[in-house]
């Protein structure tokens, strides 16, 4: 019996080692011009599509639709008023639903990046690739350039092979880090995203069809305090913060007002670098490239 248990322990050890080997932290990360912190405002623009994918009822779709009709426009206006460039992780089919808003985002200098074709990654490799390329082409038709970033479960090597340089999906470190392929070669830069800095966790009812007793509806004063504390923690130690917003959630008037206060407060401090995810990724790739793996 103990032999079997030891085998299980060895199996866990091997799994953890293999996973660890596919990740590489960046030591002594420095930002341009001596900035203390890089801040990425990111908007996951899926409007009603994730709710449609999950077969949620009509009123849920309407709730998502707010993001396309109202929310995305307000986020663009907010970022523009602060001269901040943000990244819009765009579900491919949003290009067919809200082309005007996306063109406005591009015109203001915001980055469009991949957020899957219809908010899912197919299991079949050919279809997965088909979805990734459909999104790439749809975004390129709007912005005039190919996206280089993703927020998705897409296969890292596929993303790399199709010209993507970063993903923003995991949280293995507060700072950007590298994901390697199974041969130890650099694959993608990861721009860490965490649910604790995600508007949907505090304001969206029934996220991923969660049950009523699991709801954690909050208010803007409380979330502002939490996010400010998160920002200051990273600011003091010199770091990175990715703020994940959804147009159908943060586009509500009370939350735009909250974000306006948050940004204004951040801007009172020196050394805050507001950038797109692409700018942060390119800086890391150029100044802090992945190190060759020791044989």
């Amino acid at each position, binding site marked *: 019996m103990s032999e079997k248990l030891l085998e299980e322990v060895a199996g866990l050890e091997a799994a953890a080692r293999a996973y660890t080997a596919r990740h590489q932290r960046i030591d002594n990360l420095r930002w341009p011009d001596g900035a203390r912190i890089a801040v990425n405002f990111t908007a996951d623009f899926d409007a009603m599509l994730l709710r449609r994918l999950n077969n949620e009822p009509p009123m849920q779709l309407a709730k998502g639709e707010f993001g396309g009709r*109202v929310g995305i426009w307000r986020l663009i206006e907010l970022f523009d008023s602060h001269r901040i460039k943000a990244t819009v992780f765009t579900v491919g089919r949003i290009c067919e639903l809200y082309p005007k808003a996306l063109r406005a985002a591009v015109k203001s200098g915001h980055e469009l990046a991949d957020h899957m074709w219809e908010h899912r990654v197919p299991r079949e490799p050919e279809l997965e690739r088909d979805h990734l390329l459909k999104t790439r082409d749809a975004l390129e038709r709007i912005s005039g350039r190919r996206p280089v970033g993703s927020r998705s479960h897409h296969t890292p090597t596929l993303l790399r092979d199709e010209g993507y340089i970063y993903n923003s999906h995991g949280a293995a470190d507060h700072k950007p880090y590298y994901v390697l392929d199974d041969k130890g070669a650099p694959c993608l830069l990861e721009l860490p995203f965490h649910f604790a800095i995600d508007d949907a966790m505090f304001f969206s*009812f*029934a996220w991923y069809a969660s049950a009523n007793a699991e709801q954690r509806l909050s208010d*803007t004063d409380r979330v502002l305090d939490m996010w400010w504390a998160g920002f200051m923690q990273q600011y003091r130690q010199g770091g990175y913060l990715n703020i994940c917003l959804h147009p159908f959630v943060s586009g509500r008037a009370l939350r735009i007002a909250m974000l306006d206060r948050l940004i204004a407060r951040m801007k009172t401090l020196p050394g805050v670098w507001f950038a797109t995810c692409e700018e942060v990724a390119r800086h890391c790739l150029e100044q802090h490239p992945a190190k060759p793996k020791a044989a």
Partner: protein
Amino acid sequence: MPWKDGYTISDEKSLDDKDIRWPEGKRCAVHIVVNLSMAGGPEGISAKDVRSATALFAAGEGLDLLLAALAKHGLKATFAVPAVMATIDPARIRGLVAAGHEVAAQGLRHEDVTTLPRAEEKARIELATGILADVTGRKPSGWFSLPRQGDPFAGGTISPNTMDLLIEAGFAYMGNGLADDIPHYWVTDFASRRAILTLPYYYHFDDQFFCMFPHAGTGLENSDMLVRNWRAELDAQYKRGRFFTMVLHPQHVGWCNRMGLLEDFLAYMGRLPDLWNPTGAECAGYWARTYPAATHLELEPSIWKDYPGSLS
């Protein structure tokens, strides 16, 4: 396939702040909705719901307190009334109308109609409308399908036919939609531009999700958060010149310390100049005249395609 069919209910972009005008140069509209449903979940009002202490409070002292607070601050409200509540206490419902409030319909027993056949749902709408018309002496012009605490989602439930049936039945407006924070058109047929005016709703301004949610006795009491949300939204929408709405239940906001929170908030609201406080019907009437669908509903041609391997 028409543009966005099956995905969206209205046009691509809301009205900008600068394009919104309220009557007599008012700055922001405030719509107060009082939900008189006792339904705990999708099945609607049950015998257990109406023979409960909570029901007695809601129909008695709770409603008295709420009506007194509205009167004190000179505010009008739209009452979303399931037909059965009007049969239980017709005099009480008539009293609401006499006090200047609006009585709107909310199903027979505020039941979930999601899977009802069209003919059955149509018959229920007619029955509920008739009962309310008999009690109040006038046909309701608004219809609500507000969420219940036991619903899996916080948006209210409708069937694929509901909006079309409401148009057919002559309703001027649907009282709760989530695609905008101002009145907007819910399109049921893109080709003919058939649409019903919809007033905005949002669960963050609905007391039931902050008062012992999801169950009395074990739920979370976050009435302080509720008031902070009201305050933050009112301030933001007032600044933009748009629309603020809140949903109140006598059994929730009427109880004890929560009533004090509401009183304070109403007093704060009363100090803001140039608020317009219409009932749902007044608001819908103004909107339909000022921003008629014929000239203000901007439907784009279809660019939605079907692809193999994708949802259509």
